[in-house]
């Protein structure tokens, strides 16, 4: 632990992040003069540090900037951070698999039967029970093969093509189309939003990790491990992945900022969080309607920048 808290910048970073997390967790019990969802219509767009009781001023809708910052920290810690983490994990695993296996990974044919059967049933194609039967057959064959330890015919799965294709599709579909297709008019729950964030941001991580993996898998120690008889799966997980995930160290803190931006864009399109949930991104976005209300932009920016600098200094190697 002493190593982690080594230098001064690190101590500061840890301190700041702890503060943000504590604020987020204690947001509802903090003695704030105003609640973040209640607009003070008579004092809308009030500058900070003036006579009024709003210390950091109000946004153009009359909401207290200080409360928005505090409750925005909660949203950031409970939504943005997990979303960034999930998309890094999903992207890392998928990108790593795509880079390592390429299109050559093979899957024994009972599993193919299983997958086709389940698909048949899920799509409710004619005679859905046929699908169940096919799936059952696949499962049975797989179990039998497992017991008798004999190898079955295997067909290749183009993992690389599948992952990259999915990533490309998600990147290229205009966000509005996606939004309308996924949540046309019904709005999203917090979990749904988390899923949507993960869905739209993992491709970037996947590309970075795949690119690194392409290089890592040609390194001598992988060959050495293979020669030593380590299984492919273990080589991937224990030898290749730690190196391939390297680019995410830099990318992860930056992706938090990207997600905050995405959150405000989605709100603008009419999906995102309900307007009574505070968020730093949305507070920053008010600069668009009121460029002269600098306070509603500067304060969340400072919070965000400090948090990202802290995250990135923690993610660096000592």
């Amino acid at each position, binding site marked *: 632990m002493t190593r982690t808290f080594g230098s001064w910048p690190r101590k500061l970073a840890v301190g700041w992040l702890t503060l943000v997390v504590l604020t987020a967790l204690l947001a509802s019990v903090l003695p704030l003069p105003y*609640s973040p*969802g*209640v*607009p003070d*219509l*008579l004092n*809308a*767009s009030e500058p900070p540090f003036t006579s009024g009781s709003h210390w950091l001023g109000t946004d*153009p*809708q*009359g*909401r207290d900037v200080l409360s928005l910052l505090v409750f925005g920290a909660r949203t950031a810690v409970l939504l943005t951070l997990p979303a960034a983490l999930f998309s890094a994990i999903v992207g890392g695993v998928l990108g790593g698999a795509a880079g390592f296996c390429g299109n050559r990974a093979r899957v024994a044919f009972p599993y193919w039967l299983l997958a086709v059967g389940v698909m048949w049933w899920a799509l409710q194609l004619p005679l859905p029970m046929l699908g169940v039967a096919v799936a059952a057959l696949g499962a049975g064959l797989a179990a039998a093969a497992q017991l008798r330890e004999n190898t079955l015919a295997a067909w290749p799965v183009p993992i690389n093509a599948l992952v990259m294709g999915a990533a490309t599709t998600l990147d290229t579909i205009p966000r*509005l189309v996606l*939004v*309308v297709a996924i949540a*046309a*008019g*019904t*709005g999203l729950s917090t979990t749904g939003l988390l899923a949507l964030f993960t869905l739209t941001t993992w491709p970037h991580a996947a590309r970075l990790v795949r690119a690194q993996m392409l290089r890592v898998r040609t390194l001598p120690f992988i060959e050495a491990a293979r020669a030593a008889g380590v299984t492919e799966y273990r080589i991937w997980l224990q030898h290749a992945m730690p190196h391939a995930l390297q680019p995410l160290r830099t990318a992860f803190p930056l992706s938090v900022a990207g997600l905050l931006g995405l959150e405000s864009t989605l*709100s*603008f*399109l*009419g*999906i995102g969080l*309900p*307007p*009574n949930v505070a968020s730093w991104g949305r507070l920053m976005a008010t600069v*668009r*309607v*009121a*460029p*002269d*209300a600098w306070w509603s932009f500067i304060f969340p920016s400072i919070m965000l920048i400090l948090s990202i600098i802290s995250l990135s200094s923690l993610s660096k190697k000592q």
Partner: protein
Amino acid sequence: MKPTFSGSLLLFAAIALLLQGCSSPEDKSSSIRVRWSHDPETLNVLQPPSQPAFDAANLIYTSLLHSNFSTEKLEPALAEDYPTTQYIGDSLTRLSYHIRSVATWDDGRPVLATDVDFTLKLMFCPGLPNETAQLEFDFIRALIPDPNDPRHFTLECRGQSLEYPQSSGEFFIVPEAAVDPKGLLRRFTLAELQRLPPNAPADSALVRVARQYQAFAPGALPGCGPYQLSAWEKDRYLTFRRKEKWWGSKIQPTPFVLQARPSQLDFVIIPDASTASLALQRGDLDVFPQVPAREFARLQNSSAARAKLAFYSVPSYDVVTAGFNTRRPALADALTRKALGRCFDTAGLIKATQLGAGQQTVGIISPLDRANYNDSLAPLPFDLTAAAAMLRQAGWRRESTADDAGLVRTKAQGELQRLRLVVRYRAEESTFATAALQFQAAAASIGVAVSLLPTEAGSFAATLKSGDFDMYVRTLKGNPFMFNYVPLYHSRALGQSNVTGFSTPASDRLIDAITRARTPKRKSQLLRRFQTMLQTEAPIIPLFFLPTRVAANRNLTGLHVNSLKPGFAITTVERSAVPSPTTTP
């Protein structure tokens, strides 16, 4: 790898400073530059799809009647005078128009009744983008030409209404000779085209006419208006030049609606309001209509901007309105709706969103319309105590199990109703968001649980139509000419444009009586009753009328800022050599 970032920036700065000399003051005298936030996309004369498209079409084409922006009335433009009205029996109206004898197309041909007839038929020609026009003008049953005078004709209309003389003259006239030189459409009568079944096999003559109409590039179809489209760069600008021989100027004195003062008009498309404001301050732009409230106030308070710009703010006919889905059992009674209506702090909303420039109202008729506005009513007050009392009166009580679980009531059949509301509004509008937030906070204090659902602008209308909402906050766009409330509140429009789902036999009768009223006095009596009815039944809560804000270069005269769209008179603007004295009202 030498050109690093800082280096390139320095290079750019140097280029910029060098070039500053080249782009010295441009010749700004001739053209008037107006900001539009969107490209008009198409100038379809039959049904201009947006306000910019309508304004652009208005320069190229002319209609029989035209809004006079200084008096805010419809006045004869292509027609010599208002039509004469003749009621036949109790279900037909005949309107006789006479086209001005000086009116000509660009090639010198006169504008005749056959052109009007052709335009009406084109509106019902299948395969053309004319569906809205069909809905709007299907009350005209036939055009009866005058055998003795090719400029004189009579429109025969179904039904009788005080508004027909106005609404019958509000479409742009298309030249028959340019689109249909062979007179293919003359073989059909208007009634035949109107009766054409939607899935009828395509008639070759109609297909030919439709193709010929669509072969014209946007704005290239000749019109009898004062301007010609001389350049259209998509998403950048549209330039209009005044015709050298414009027939309107032969009439002396030229009526207001036929005046065409600027020799060139440029409409520049600037999506972002801050950018437009900067351009206006720098003199790269002359007129900035619909300035956002805060930007307007900021400019008014800046001495540098005051020296260059003039500011105008007048009330408009657009009203911010909250509405209820009356089909929901919890919102089916007027008492609950009226109680909820008292949760809107209208005065505070006007202060916060419009900086005090809006106007509270009792109904959807503007207080500007002194004859018809019902001034004996008072706007709903912001009164939470009264609201809570009214809710109790309507049978709502707090659920006994938990304190913040909201209000419930038991109906006669023993079913339990809950008062939980979903408020929808267009996501990108901050005025609606502020109103919804304020309502949510106020309603929460009297125990009503409200959740907000900002909705993507495109799907908003469809969602309301499908009834997937409890309340909405939106702008209703009005005008001083038409009082036809059938689309909004009649039972005939249920499932379509009557999104509140409100209708009673009495309200249906009242709305029908308004459209049929024969004298203005009778009509205004009925309209006053209609406003009272809307306030007692409260299917909607009209909050306030929005202002129109226009900022323009101070050396412009003849702007005639007014309550109609687009907010000022484009064709009478002139640049005076001497800056005009401040005209800020």
